[in-house]
């Protein structure tokens, strides 16, 4: 048990002592948890997000899963702002999974802010009007003469009541009609736009935060699971008597593949969360079942197993690129302006083949799940209680129904903080395993994946290739663009992240463009990986545009702005469509803040890239040093972002910093390869993550346009790779068309 517990208010009291730049040690009070829990029972609910205690503590529920994106802090800030609460009085708790009450409780696609901002505002405003209504009754004054601020309602006379004093009566006020709610003028904001430390930082920093892997359920057994090393295979037999005889092991058994769980209402999850065939071991502690796992000898049936080979994929892609063609998505095949411009003798043309690898998510918390399946006796229904970190915990109910036939009302899901998501925890294959093991063994089990399980059984960022052709005219203008995407699909469905999104520059902004694709068959599981599609398309397109600027002898910024053309919204009113004016603004800002155009010393270079995705316009300039031995460092990255008004400045900068580090780590170091269907990287010694020493200085600038606030978990990542390779070109004259850089002979230091 933890020795102490602090709540936010104690922390903030302590923090306020720490002003003046000198940080004083904070004094911890004795446990207040029990008192808090008692107080909650008495608290008054104004709506499903807001409760107020008579002592003035305001509880705001966060309904969106937290994986480090900061949503548990940002959305409650919006409610507190509209209520007129003081942030110091707010305690944030996770809402239970109840999508009838809260709507979709999911995190993905950088959509949590745009999807929920208006609701949060409405909930805050509604609570505020109920408090004002209560104050009008208690003080016997007109509502119009009342104002809520600093967790109090003030009358024009100066008289006031605290939210705590008003809580009981406020909860009995009629819920206001949303149509008549009014909202704060953003210029009067005191919480939105400020710098707030995340609400869980105290429990995290003291080791008290509970992740899925930390769950401890009475009577539970610990489990490991070993899947066929080639996806699609299944276990025939294993050294069962040896394994069962090992100390600490209570049982071991084979599970057959089961694709019933793959049925999913969400299109991008369809077919994903299937149970793979393998061998389960259960025992008294994690170590015993992991040690036993190492001693497993399994005979596998490979008749339906993957034969994917990265070597073969690379060879096939080069052959397809050389043959040309493909399904035309934009422009015309055959004798159109693109071919004529490419063949025009007065033009300079260029052809380039780009490649990007499969990469893994490697969330720091390996996949895990605790499941307690109970067979109903005496005609009672079966039940399932389950604990996990999930980006879409509602999915778990769907899986339980499809795979085990447990009715959704009999499934209790505990969604815990995630030790990283990045798209991986949108897919619940690990939950199917824990459910199946508990179902088979008739005990609650905690399944923990090893890091090797986590890498081998990932839903990877899909690899791929693009063959690029373009021409520039004698006066240095982009005259034609021909983009051939060579990617992957499953026999029966598309592969998330493979292909073009249709939003890409330059083809959305020019006439003489053709885009085509050829998709090869794939067996290796792939899924959403932070900014799917965008994270590789940005590399190809923004590198190739730089190549063309160089071919034309033009300045990159000037060439990019010219392609962008006059300020216009490609689809007016649609935040998911490129706005060339906002694009130009971030490009100019990043260029100016980075000192674009200055003379660089030998071995140093500046590189620019822009990308639009997730409703965000982002430009980045990387400053690199490349040494004679091909070691290189990224010294600084200047970032300009337009995602509308910022809610939590600290959280927003955090997401950008994280995206830069993640983008650099991935493009410099990471590749997953497979041969004969077997994933070849086993653990971090073969799949590195960037370490602290390589971290660049990161300079973040926001353009807070009057567009709605949108999400920032993903869109700062895609421009990083091309910004770095463009900078390396500027420093060395060497063009990099394939990631990771470690395979191109460059070592990040």
């Amino acid at each position, binding site marked *: 048990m933890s020795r102490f517990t602090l709540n936010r208010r104690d922390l903030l009291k302590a923090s306020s002592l720490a002003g003046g730049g000198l940080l004083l040690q*904070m004094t911890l009070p004795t446990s207040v948890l029990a008192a808090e829990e008692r107080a909650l029972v008495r608290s008054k609910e104004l709506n499903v997000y807001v409760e107020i205690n008579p002592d003035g503590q305001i509880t705001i529920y966060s309904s969106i899963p937290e994986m480090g994106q900061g949503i548990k802090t940002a959305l409650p800030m919006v409610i507190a702002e509209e209520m007129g609460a003081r942030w110091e009085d707010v305690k944030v708790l996770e809402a239970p999974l109840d999508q009838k009450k809260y709507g979709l409780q999911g995190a993905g696609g950088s959509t949590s802010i745009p999807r929920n901002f208006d609701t949060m505002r409405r909930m805050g405003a509604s609570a505020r009007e109920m408090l004002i209504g209560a104050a009008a009754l208690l003080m016997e004054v007109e509502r119009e003469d009342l104002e809520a601020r600093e967790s109090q309602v003030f009358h024009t006379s100066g008289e006031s009541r605290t939210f705590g004093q008003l809580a009981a009566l406020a909860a009995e006020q009629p819920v206001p009609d949303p149509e008549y709610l009014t909202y704060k003028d953003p210029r009067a904001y005191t919480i939105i736009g400020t710098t707030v430390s*995340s609400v869980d930082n105290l429990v995290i920093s003291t*080791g008290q935060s509970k992740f899925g892997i930390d769950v401890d359920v009475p009577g539970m057994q610990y489990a490991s699971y070993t899947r066929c090393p080639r996806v699609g295979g299944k276990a025939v037999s294993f050294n069962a008597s040896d394994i069962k005889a090992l100390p600490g092991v209570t049982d071991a058994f084979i599970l057959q593949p089961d694709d019933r769980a793959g049925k999913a209402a969400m299109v991008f999850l369809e077919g994903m969360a299937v149970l793979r065939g393998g061998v389960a071991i259960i025992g008294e502690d994690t170590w015993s079942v992991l040690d036993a796992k190492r001693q497993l000898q399994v005979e596998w049936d490979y008749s339906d197993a993957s034969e994917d080979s990265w070597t073969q994929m690379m060879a096939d892609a080069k052959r397809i690129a050389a043959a040309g063609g493909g399904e035309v998505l934009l422009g015309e095949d055959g004798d159109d302006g693109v071919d004529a411009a490419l063949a025009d003798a007065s033009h300079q043309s260029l052809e380039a083949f780009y490649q990007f690898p499969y990469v893994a998510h490697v969330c720091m918390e*390996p996949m895990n799940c605790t499941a307690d399946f109970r067979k109903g006796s005496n005609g009672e229904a079966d039940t399932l209680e389950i604990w996990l970190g999930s980006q879409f915990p509602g999915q778990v109910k769907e899986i339980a129904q499809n795979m085990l036939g447990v009715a959704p009302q009999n499934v209790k899901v505990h969604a815990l903080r995630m030790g990283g998501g*990045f798209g991986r925890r949108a897919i619940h294959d690990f939950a199917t395993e824990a459910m199946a093991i508990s179902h088979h063994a008739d005990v609650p089990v905690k399944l923990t994946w*090893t890091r090797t399980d986590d890498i081998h059984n990932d839903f990877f960022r899909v690899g791929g290739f693009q063959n690029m052709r373009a021409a520039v005219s004698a006066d240095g203008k982009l005259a034609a663009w021909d983009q051939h995407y060579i990617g992957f699909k499953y026999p029966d469905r598309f592969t998330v992240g493979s292909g073009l999104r249709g939003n890409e520059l330059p083809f959305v902004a020019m006439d003489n463009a053709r885009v085509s694709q050829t998709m090869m068959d794939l067996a290796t599981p792939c899924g959403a990986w932070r900014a799917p599609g965008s994270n590789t398309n940005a590399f190809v397109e923004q590198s190739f545009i730089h190549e063309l600027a160089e071919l034309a002898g033009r300045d990159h910024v000037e060439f990019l702005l010219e392609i962008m053309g006059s300020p216009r919204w490609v689809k007016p009113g649609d935040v998911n469509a490129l706005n060339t004016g906002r694009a130009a603004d971030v490009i100019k800002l990043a260029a100016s803040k980075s000192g674009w155009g200055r003379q660089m010393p030998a071995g140093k270079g500046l590189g620019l890239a822009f990308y639009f995705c997730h409703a965000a316009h982002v430009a980045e300039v990387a400053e690199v040093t490349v040494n004679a031995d091909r070691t290189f460092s990224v010294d600084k990255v200047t970032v300009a972002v337009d995602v509308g008004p910022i809610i939590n400045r600290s959280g927003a900068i955090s997401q950008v910093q994280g995206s830069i580090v993640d983008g650099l780590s991935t493009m410099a170091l990471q590749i997953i390869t497979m041969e004969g269907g077997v994933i070849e990287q086993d653990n971090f010694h073969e799949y590195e993550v960037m*370490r602290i020493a390589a*971290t660049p200085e990161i300079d973040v600038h926001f353009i807070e346009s009057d567009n709605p606030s949108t999400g920032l978990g993903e869109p700062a990542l895609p421009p990083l790779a091309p910004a770095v390779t463009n900078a390396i070109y500027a420093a060395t004259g060497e063009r990099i068309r394939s990631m990771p850089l470690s395979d191109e002979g460059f070592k990040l230091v």
Partner: protein
Amino acid sequence: MSQFKLTVNGQSHEVDVNPNMPLLWVLRDKLKLTGTKYGCGIAQCGACTVHVDGAPVRACVLPVSAVAGAVTTIEGLAADGELHALQAAWIEHDVPQCGYCQAGQIMSAAALLAAKAEPSDADIDTALAGNYCRCGTYVRIRKAVHSAAIAYNAAKSAKGA
């Protein structure tokens, strides 16, 4: 199975486990101290960093039979009801994102501060080289360690005075 006596965060414990069981799993599964995290099992990521007699070790590869000294985990870092300067700095600088690696980061940094009063960026890079952060909080980790060093030294000299 064998009996082992362990001192963890100032408390003595007796555990009856396989001598090869790494300290990590003794802490997590037997003593229910889950602040120390599993990340790789091969001492590559640092999520499991704890102190043995003040020195940072990777608990995922240290067999319980080889533990020779008093163990301190993240749960025991705050002493006498006061947050360690690093924990306060982690909050002040809003370091964590997902938070999973941060116990290991803080434990590595705490060993650095105990050894070096005013660590440079290079000292921090070296001391934390064994700790992955997949969310990329490294910029803030550096800042927080520098700022904690000031508070840590001030507290130390105050106690000494």
